[in-house]
């Protein structure tokens, strides 16, 4: 997890700062990840000739909100694995599973910085609908940003 969580480039659009200490990251895993209702490691299957065992290259989480029907998705991928469709594949698998796992949730939404073209493409390729630009919506790295909001509804078609 440190591979992406400590990378300022991979975390540039995150509302949280890159981790600089292993202890802080272990505390995050203990306090947030393990008790979380839906937090998954994104793993690449071992290739031919490699030792079997899946290594996490990213993480995806779906967090219920105060509204029962709505949950917010976050995804991060280590920079070494960008540009290979990892995020898109993780998103597809997420929307295929999460509505059965989280009772009452009918909407999964994702907020993306207007300048984060790669994440926007991943969401679109996974079948998310772009709904709006929410102005002055999130503070990221000390700046107030406009965010594009995407959603996937339980009745939306799953893309292969």
């Amino acid at each position: 997890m440190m591979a992406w969580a400590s990378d300022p480039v991979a975390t540039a659009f995150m509302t949280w700062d890159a981790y600089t200490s292993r202890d802080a990251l272990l505390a995050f895993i203990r306090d947030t990840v393990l008790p979380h209702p839906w937090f998954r490691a994104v793993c690449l299957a071992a290739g031919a000739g490699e030792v079997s065992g899946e290594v996490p290259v990213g993480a995806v989480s779906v967090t219920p909100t105060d509204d029962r029907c709505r949950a917010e998705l976050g995804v991060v991928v280590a920079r070494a694995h960008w540009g290979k469709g990892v995020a898109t594949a993780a998103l597809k698998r997420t929307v295929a599973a999460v509505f059965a796992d989280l009772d009452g949730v009918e909407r999964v939404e994702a907020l993306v910085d207007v300048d984060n073209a790669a994440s926007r493409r991943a969401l679109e390729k996974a079948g998310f609908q772009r709904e709006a630009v929410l102005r002055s919506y999130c503070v990221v790295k000390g700046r107030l940003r406009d965010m594009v909001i995407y959603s996937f509804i339980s009745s939306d078609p799953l893309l292969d």
Partner: protein
Amino acid sequence: MELQQQGDPPRAAAEPTGEVVTLREFMASDADAEAFMSWASDPLVALFQRRDAFEHVGQARRYIFDHVLPHPWYRAICVGSGSGSGSGSGAAVVVGSISVKPAPAEADGRLFMASVGYRVARAQWGRGVATRAVRAAAEDVFAAWPWLRRLEAVADVENPASQRVLEKAGFVREGVLRKYIVLKGRPRDMVMFSLVDTDRVAGGR
């Protein structure tokens, strides 16, 4: 965050014609509880709210005490001159309510967003009361809360009257958020509107 002080003069929204719409704080009085019922007991008004319609004035009294008085920003919408206290001090009548709720602070304690909601008695619909109340509320909270950058509101996709209120009040329609909020047990599609500090006309504070 600053709170409106008791005893502030009623905030007037100036209109070239028509009755004056003012905002004032609620009181823990029988008169205000009864006025509250004029919209809070109406199932048509409650249709697009989370709350069910009240059935007796005791519920309004309790709601004012438990929810309205401790609220960061909750105002009675008054129409006509005077303060709407209904005790001979003027012709103003309380016809609705409007509230602005700051969004929870960020992890670092920073506040920058709030959301506005409003309800008007059915007899007063179609006269621009809600529009004037929303404009007045926006002026007030942007002045009272220097940290405020975004004021947002949602209206049910099947509530075009409320969507028009927000548009006429100067809010920008951002888009439809599908299955966004559960109302009366069903997830509803909502239209999201916002007013950001840079939208506001220079000198309009």
